[in-house]
C-alpha cells in the first residue's frame, strides 16, 4: 500500500510534509526553528533523529561527494562534501535535486509485466519471484534458440553497472552495448592513438585554454568546470569555439562562432603557424615523439588563410591565437572536451587536437595534458563459464577500433535490423535509455519491435521501459550500498555510496537483481555473484585500511592533494612506438590517415538548417528531465534560431514550430536568439518522450533522437550527431 500513499501525496505536499515536520518539532515559526536548533546545540540534545551520511552523487557521471542529511528517516537535504577534492566541494543543481529521484511519485515501485501491446503502457504488478522467473525463462529460451549471443545487454555507467556487464559475460553474450559510441569514443580514440591514453587537461594550472564546443559552464565536469572559472586567473586566457554563444562563451575571453565540423581546419591552421614559424620545443618533440618529419610537409597546405575559408575564423586571429598558444606553452592546452559525437571526421579532428597539444610540449606538465592517476583497488574476480559455439560480437569488424565492452550503437543496431550475421532477439537494459539517447529513434523502435523479449532495469518509467516486456525497479543511488569506486584523474579519489535510507517500495539494488537472475540461470553463474556487498567492498579494500578509514571519516580518500607531473618521463607509453605518435603507424597500417587530413563537412542546403545538439546545466542526458526540482528551472527544450533568420522567415519568439528532418518531424517552441549561427538550429536533449507515464514530460518539447540521422564516425564507431539538416516552419 505504500505506493498508494505516495500517489495520494502531490509533489508539493511532499515537501510540505517535511516542512510541517520541522515546523511542528521546532514549535512553529522559522525564528523558533533557529532558537530550537541553537538550544539543541547548546545543551547537546537533539530534538529529533538527524543523521548525516557520506555518499556519492548519482545524477550524472561526475560522482561528486555528497553529505545527505536524514531527518526522521526522510532525506532532507543533499549537501556537498567539502572534503571531496574532485568536485572541489560543490554540488550542482542536479546534485541538489537528487531528492526528487527518491521521492518522485512517478518512480518505479514494483516489478511490472506487460499485459497490453508493446508501447501501450499496459503493465501489471508482479512479484519479484514471478518477474525474475520470467526473465530467466526467456534468457534460457533465447540462448536455446539463438545462441547466447542472441541477447544484447545494454547499459550505461554507474557504480553497479559492473554487475550487469559481469552478468552478461557469465550468461555468455559478447553483445554488451554501452554509451561511449554516443559520446566520447572518437575523443578517446584520437587522443589514445597519439598518447596511448586519453589524458586530462590540467585546467587549474593552464595559462591558455582553447576549447571546441566543450561547453563546460553547462555540461558540467568536475573539476574542470570549476577550475575553468576559479583557476589562477591572472594570466589565464580562454578561447572558445562554438556555433552557439553558450554560458561558456559568456565566460571566455574570446568566442568564435565557428562553422560546425570545421574545427580541424582551425587546428591545422594553428599547427601550420606553429610549425612554419618554429614556435615549438624542438628538442622535446625530438626526444618524446615520432612523426614530426611527416607532419612538417603534411601541414604545408593548411595555411591560416586556407583555414579561414573553411572555418570562418579570420586568418589573423588564427595566427595570433597560434602564437599566443605557443608562447604560453607548455602551460597551454587544447581542451578536448568529452562528448565528441559531432561529425564523421571526429577521430581525426581529435588527433589534430592532440598533435597541437604535442607541439605545446604540455604532456605530463603543469597546465598541460596529464595522464590520469588512479588508486588501485582489489578487483572482483569472477569466472564466466565457457560456452561453445557462441559467435563473436555482432558488429565485429564494422569499426576500425571497436571496443569489445562498449560496442558501437549505430553499427550494432543496423546489424540487428538486418539480422546478419545472426539474429539478436533478446534485450536486457540497465540504466540506459536508448529511445532517448540514440539517434534515429525509429530504428531503435524497429529494433525493439523485432525483439522477442525486452527487460529493463531502471528507476523511472522512461521510454525504453515503456516499450519493455518486464520492468524491474532499481533502488536509487541514495538507497543503495555501492561498491568502492576509484575515480581517476589528475588528483584521483576513492569514493563509495552508502544507503542514505532503506530502499523504498519494492525497489532493489542491481546487485540483488543480478544475483537473483544468476541463481535462476545456473549454479556456475551464481558462483560469480555469491557475495554480499559488504564482502565485496571488504575485498576491494584488502590491505588498504587507510582508504576504509578515510571513507568512514571524510567520505572520500585521496592519496595526494597536489598533482604529480612527469611520472611518465622516460617511461614507455601505451603506443606501438612507446612514444607520443604524431604520425600513427598503426593507422597507416589499417589504411587510415596516419596524419589528420581535412575533409570539409557537407554544406547546409538552401532553405535548411544544420541541427546541433547540446546540454544545459540542469539536466543529464535523458535521465533527469523528469525531475520536479529541475523542471522548475527548465520545463522543456526549445528550438534556437538566429534572430536574423527568424525575422526573415517571419517567425516569432515563443511560437510553436515544426522541425522536419529526413527522419521525422517534431514540434517545439521557438527561441529566437542572437546566440546561434544563422545556419544552425539547436535543441537540447531529452524531451519529446513517447511514454505516457512521466507526468512532467508529457507534451513537452521535441525529441532530438527522433530527428537526428544515424551518421557515424567509422574509426571509433561513434555516432555523428551534427550532420542532420532540418527545415523549420510555423506550426
Amino acid at each position, binding site marked *: 500500500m505504500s505506493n498508494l500513499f505516495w500517489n495520494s501525496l502531490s509533489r508539493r505536499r511532499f515537501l510540505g510534509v517535511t516542512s510541517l515536520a520541522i515546523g511542528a518539532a521546532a514549535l512553529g515559526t522559522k525564528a523558533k526553528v533557529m532558537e530550537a536548533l541553537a538550544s539543541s546545540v547548546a545543551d547537546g540534545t537533539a530534538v529529533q533523529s538527524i543523521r548525516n551520511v557520506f555518499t556519492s552523487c548519482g545524477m550524472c*557521471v561526475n560522482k561528486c561527494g555528497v553529505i545527505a542529511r536524514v531527518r526522521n528517516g526522510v532525506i532532507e537535504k543533499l549537501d556537498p562534501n567539502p572534503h571531496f577534492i574532485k568536485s572541489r566541494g560543490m554540488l550542482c543543481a542536479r546534485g541538489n535535486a537528487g531528492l526528487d529521484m527518491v521521492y518522485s511519485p512517478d518512480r518505479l515501485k514494483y516489478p511490472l509485466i506487460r499485459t497490453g501491446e508493446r508501447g501501450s503502457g499496459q503493465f501489471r504488478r508482479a512479484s519479484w519471484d514471478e518477474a525474475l522467473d520470467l526473465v530467466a525463462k526467456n534468457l534460457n529460451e533465447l540462448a536455446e534458440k539463438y545462441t547466447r549471443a542472441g541477447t544484447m545487454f545494454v547499459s*550505461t*555507467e*554507474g557504480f553497479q*553497472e559492473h554487475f550487469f556487464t559481469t552478468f552478461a559475460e557469465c550468461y555468455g553474450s*559478447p553483445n554488451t552495448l*554501452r*554509451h*561511449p559510441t554516443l*559520446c*566520447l*569514443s572518437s575523443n*578517446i*580514440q584520437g587522443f*589514445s592513438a597519439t598518447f*596511448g*591514453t*586519453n589524458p586530462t587537461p590540467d585546467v587549474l594550472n593552464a595559462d591558455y585554454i582553447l576549447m571546441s564546443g566543450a561547453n563546460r559552464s553547462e555540461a558540467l565536469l568536475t573539476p574542470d568546470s570549476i577550475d575553468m572559472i576559479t583557476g589562477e586567473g591572472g594570466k589565464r586566457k580562454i578561447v572558445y569555439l562554438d556555433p552557439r554563444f553558450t554560458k561558456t562563451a559568456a565566460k571566455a575571453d574570446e568566442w568564435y562562432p565557428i562553422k560546425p565540423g570545421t574545427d580541424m581546419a582551425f587546428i591545422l591552421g594553428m599547427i601550420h603557424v606553429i610549425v612554419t614559424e618554429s614556435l615549438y620545443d624542438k628538442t622535446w618533440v625530438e626526444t618524446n615523439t615520432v612523426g614530426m618529419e611527416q607532419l612538417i610537409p603534411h601541414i604545408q597546405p593548411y595555411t591560416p588563410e586556407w583555414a579561414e575559408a573553411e572555418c570562418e575564423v579570420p586568418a589573423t586571429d588564427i595566427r595570433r591565437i597560434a602564437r599566443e598558444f605557443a608562447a604560453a606553452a607548455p602551460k597551454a592546452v587544447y581542451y578536448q572536451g568529452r562528448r565528441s559525437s559531432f561529425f*564523421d571526421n571526429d577521430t581525426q579532428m581529435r588527433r589534430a587536437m592532440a598533435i597541437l597539444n604535442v607541439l605545446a610540449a604540455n604532456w605530463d606538465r603543469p597546465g598541460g595534458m596529464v595522464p590520469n592517476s588512479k588508486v588501485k583497488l*582489489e578487483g572482483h*574476480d569472477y*569466472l*564466466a*563459464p*565457457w560456452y561453445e559455439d*557462441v559467435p563473436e560480437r555482432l558488429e*565485429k*569488424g*564494422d*569499426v*576500425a*577500433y571497436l*571496443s*569489445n*565492452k*562498449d560496442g558501437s550503437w549505430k553499427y550494432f543496431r543496423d546489424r540487428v535490423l538486418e539480422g546478419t550475421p545472426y539474429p539478436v532477439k533478446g534485450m536486457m537494459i540497465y540504466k540506459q535509455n536508448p529511445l532517448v539517447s540514440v539517434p534515429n529513434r525509429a530504428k531503435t523502435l524497429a529494433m525493439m519491435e523485432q525483439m522477442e523479449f525486452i527487460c529493463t532495469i531502471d528507476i523511472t518509467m522512461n521510454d525504453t521501459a515503456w516499450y519493455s516486456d518486464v520492468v524491474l525497479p532499481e533502488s536509487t543511488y541514495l538507497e543503495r550500498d555501492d561498491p568502492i569506486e576509484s575515480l581517476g584523474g589528475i588528483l584521483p579519489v576513492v569514493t563509495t555510496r552508502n544507503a542514505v535510507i532503506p530502499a523504498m517500495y519494492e525497489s532493489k539494488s542491481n546487485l540483488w537483481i543480478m544475483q537473483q537472475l544468476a541463481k535462476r540461470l545456473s549454479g556456475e553463474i551464481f558462483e560469480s555473484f555469491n557475495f554480499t556487498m559488504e564482502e565485496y567492498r571488504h575485498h576491494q579494500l584488502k*590491505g588498504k585500511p587507510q582508504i576504509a578509514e578515510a571513507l568512514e571519516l571524510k567520505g572520500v580518500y585521496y592519496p595526494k592533494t597536489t598533482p604529480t607531473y612527469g611520472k611518465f618521463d622516460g617511461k*614507455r607509453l*601505451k*603506443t*606501438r612506438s*612507446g612514444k607520443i605518435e604524431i604520425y600513427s603507424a*598503426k593507422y597507416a*597500417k*589499417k*589504411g*587510415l590517415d596516419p596524419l589528420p587530413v581535412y*575533409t570539409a563537412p557537407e554544406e547546409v542546403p538552401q532553405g535548411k538548417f544544420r541541427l546541433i545538439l547540446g546540454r544545459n546545466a540542469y539536466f543529464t542526458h535523458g535521465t533527469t528531465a523528469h525531475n520536479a526540482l529541475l523542471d522548475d528551472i527548465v520545463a522543456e527544450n526549445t528550438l534556437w534560431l538566429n534572430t536574423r533568420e527568424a525575422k526573415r522567415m517571419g517567425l516569432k519568439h515563443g511560437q510553436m514550430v515544426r522541425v522536419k528532418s529526413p527522419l521525422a518531424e517534431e514540434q517545439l517552441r521557438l527561441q529566437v536568439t542572437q546566440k546561434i549561427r544563422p545556419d544552425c538550429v539547436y535543441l537540447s536533449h531529452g524531451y519529446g518522450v513517447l511514454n505516457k507515464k512521466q507526468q512532467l514530460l508529457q507534451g513537452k518539447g521535441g525529441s532530438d533522437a527522433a530527428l537526428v540521422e544515424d551518421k557515424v564516425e*567509422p*574509426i*571509433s564507431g561513434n555516432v555523428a550527431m551534427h550532420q542532420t539538416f532540418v527545415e523549420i516552419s510555423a506550426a
Partner: protein
Amino acid sequence: MERIVACITVLLFSVIFTVSAMAAEGGNPKKGKYLWKKNCKVCHVAGEEGGVLSPSTKTQKSWDRFFTKNKHKKKPEAWGKFSEKDLKDIQQYMYDHAMDSDQPETCG
C-alpha cells in the same frame, strides 16, 4: 560521394585486417580469457607465487615473444597442462588486451 568511398575503403581495410590478424594468430580470445582466468590467475594475483600479471602488463610484441620463446620458463610445469590450442587461445587474449593493443579505453 568521395567520403562514402573513403568510409567504405576504411571499413574494408579494417575488416580485412581483423580477419587476417585472426588468421595469423588463430586463437579464440574469449576462450583464452576463460582459460587464463580459470588456470593462470590463481598464481598471478597479488601475494601469490606468480605475482600480479594481466594482459596489459606487456606489449603485444612481448606477449608474442613470451609465447614463442620464453614459454613460461620460470615454471614450465604450469605450461604443460595446456593443449596447443589452449595456448593459442590464451596468447590471442593476451595479445588483444596488451598494453599497446587496439582495445580502446572506456568510460565509467
